[in-house]
């Protein structure tokens, strides 16, 4: 197990380093002189030179990269060009809203995905199964931002059940906060639950044909216990990976869904940054999101190794 963890960690480091180089180059290759932003458009030649020295821009690139990386590791992503706030403070301001949305969507889609997947597997080939299958196919073909618009039109503008956009702090007013959270969370959860339902169904169907399930039935266990204790437990192994791999979809989806509902999260921060050409903000947020994504993937793999000994021992075959 230790060897497996070590091997997987060693694979992660080059990926993180390469991504960080890419993100670093983003700022350096971008048009415009960062010093000009800090010193202001009317800065004198000396002022500009001073700003360059202060920002370390007179150093060669490898040194700049090393300095940037050591700062970034400590959460120091520099000062936002436009607002002049430290990027880290801006991130901390919007992070809770994004986590709130992502978590709500994750809980919702897991619940929905499991129920639909199990129902589909237990009623294989019957009407319910086919209906769920068609629903899933449609859910996968409907872009989440358009789904969001439709939900706003139906539930906020026509039925007037829920607010069309915005966000309320949970601490300030839990009831209102949930009302604002409902539509964005559903929007973000739909595709995810469709993917999960497909995998839970397929994985459970595989397991249901195994001998030990027949044995469990043969010894007279109630069907409920056969499904929950014997089948579902083993069917969970591949599902764990899928959920980890879907985390990227969740992150990317959150960026877009936030834009639909005017949700003040990390997506809104980075999009504002791109439009205003505020490179330090874009760089900081990208670093944070990519690192999170890579680490989640790593955790998924490690968890998979814990659940399935064959993976741990590197017996996957081929690659």
């Amino acid at each position: 197990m230790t060897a497996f963890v070590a091997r997987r960690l060693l694979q992660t480091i080059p990926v993180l380093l390469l991504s960080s180089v890419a993100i670093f180059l983003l700022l350096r290759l971008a048009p415009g002189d960062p010093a000009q932003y800090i010193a202001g458009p009317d800065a004198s030649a000396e002022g500009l030179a001073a700003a360059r020295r202060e920002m370390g821009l007179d150093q060669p690139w490898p040194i700049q990269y090393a300095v940037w990386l050591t700062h970034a590791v400590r959460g120091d992503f520099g000062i936002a060009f436009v607002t002049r706030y430290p990027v880290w403070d801006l991130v901390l301001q919007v992070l809770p809203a994004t986590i709130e949305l992502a978590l709500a969507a994750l809980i919702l889609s897991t619940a929905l995905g499991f129920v639909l997947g199990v129902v589909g597997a237990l009623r294989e080939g019957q009407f319910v199964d086919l209906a769920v299958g068609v629903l899933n196919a449609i859910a996968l073909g409907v872009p989440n931002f358009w789904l969001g618009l439709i939900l706003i039109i139906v539930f906020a503008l026509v039925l007037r059940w829920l607010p069309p956009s915005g966000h309320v702090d949970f601490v300030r007013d839990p009831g209102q906060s949930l009302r604002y959270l409902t539509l964005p969370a559903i929007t973000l959860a739909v595709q995810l639950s469709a993917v999960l339902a497909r995998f839970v169904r397929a994985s459970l169907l595989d397991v249901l044909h195994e001998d030990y399930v027949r044995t469990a039935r043969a010894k007279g266990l109630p069907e409920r216990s056969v499904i929950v204790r014997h089948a579902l437990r083993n069917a969970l192994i591949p599902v764990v990976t899928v959920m980890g791999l879907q985390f990227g979809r969740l992150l990317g989806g959150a960026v877009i869904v936030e834009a639909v509902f005017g949700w003040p999260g990390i997506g809104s921060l980075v999009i504002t940054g791109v439009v205003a050409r505020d490179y330090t903000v874009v760089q900081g947020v990208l670093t944070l999101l990519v690192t999170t994504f890579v680490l989640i993937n790593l955790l998924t793999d490690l968890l998979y190794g814990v659940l399935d000994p064959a993976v741990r021992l590197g017996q996957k075959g081929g690659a």
Partner: protein
Amino acid sequence: MAATLGSKTQTLKARRTQSTDSFWLAAAKRVVRQPLGLFGVSLTLMVTLVALLAPYLAPHDPFFQYQGQELVAPNSVYPLGTDEMGRDLLSRVMFGARISLSVGGASVVMGGLVGVLSGLLSGYWEGWVDAVTMRLWDSVLAFPPVLVGIAVAALLGPSTTNVAIALGIASIPQFARLTRASVLVEKHKEYVTAARCLGASNPRIVLRHIFPNTVSPLLVQLAVAMAFAVLLEAGLSFLGIGSQPPEASWGTMLSTARRFLVEAPWYGVFPGLALVVLLLGLNFVADAARTALDPHRRQY
């Protein structure tokens, strides 16, 4: 001796080309024979036809602003209504198909070419080339595609071309991994040894012998990547970092429509509906291709 060998490879080659043809035809037939496959192919072809014939089919100029006709509800003159500048929505939706398909097509061709070549290289020769390129694609995979789009837009500025570049880059790793995995299996088979004994050069073995046998999974990936690119182009344009106004991209239209949902809900409905038709079509084609090309594979 050399001459006989040469003519033998010629006949072998001729036979091979023949069988490749029937492979394509057979694959297409097997896709269309499935109800969902036929449905998907029809939807995709329909959108493609509309995109190609947009100048002839569109009832109005998609950029002409009819003064005083802003946000008109669907009627006989404007079948899908008009937008906030008095432009005909149906015509704009029709021209929008061109952007979706060309961005999707361009990015898939770019990602496919680079990915397949890199996969062939690293699968056949392995070693350090393999290690370096695959780590590179791993780090591209470390960026969720929306973030690749954001990064490219931040660097090159938002535009339709740059979206295609971003999506092309984002689709390389999957093509590379699939190709590499197939090559690793194929290169130990007897026909490769046979070709080598006949004196075939490495590039010839890779391109002429191994590559045709890696095509099946790539075809499925082609449809999957296309659907993905179409979806992301619309998503990035919706975020305002893809196609820029006045270009008629479905994502840009939906982004503007968001501001007029109360006065003109149809504006937020129709461009998205067009997008869903294309996406469903491509998804069904991908599903059907998966079943057609590998009947043993479980259908997820």
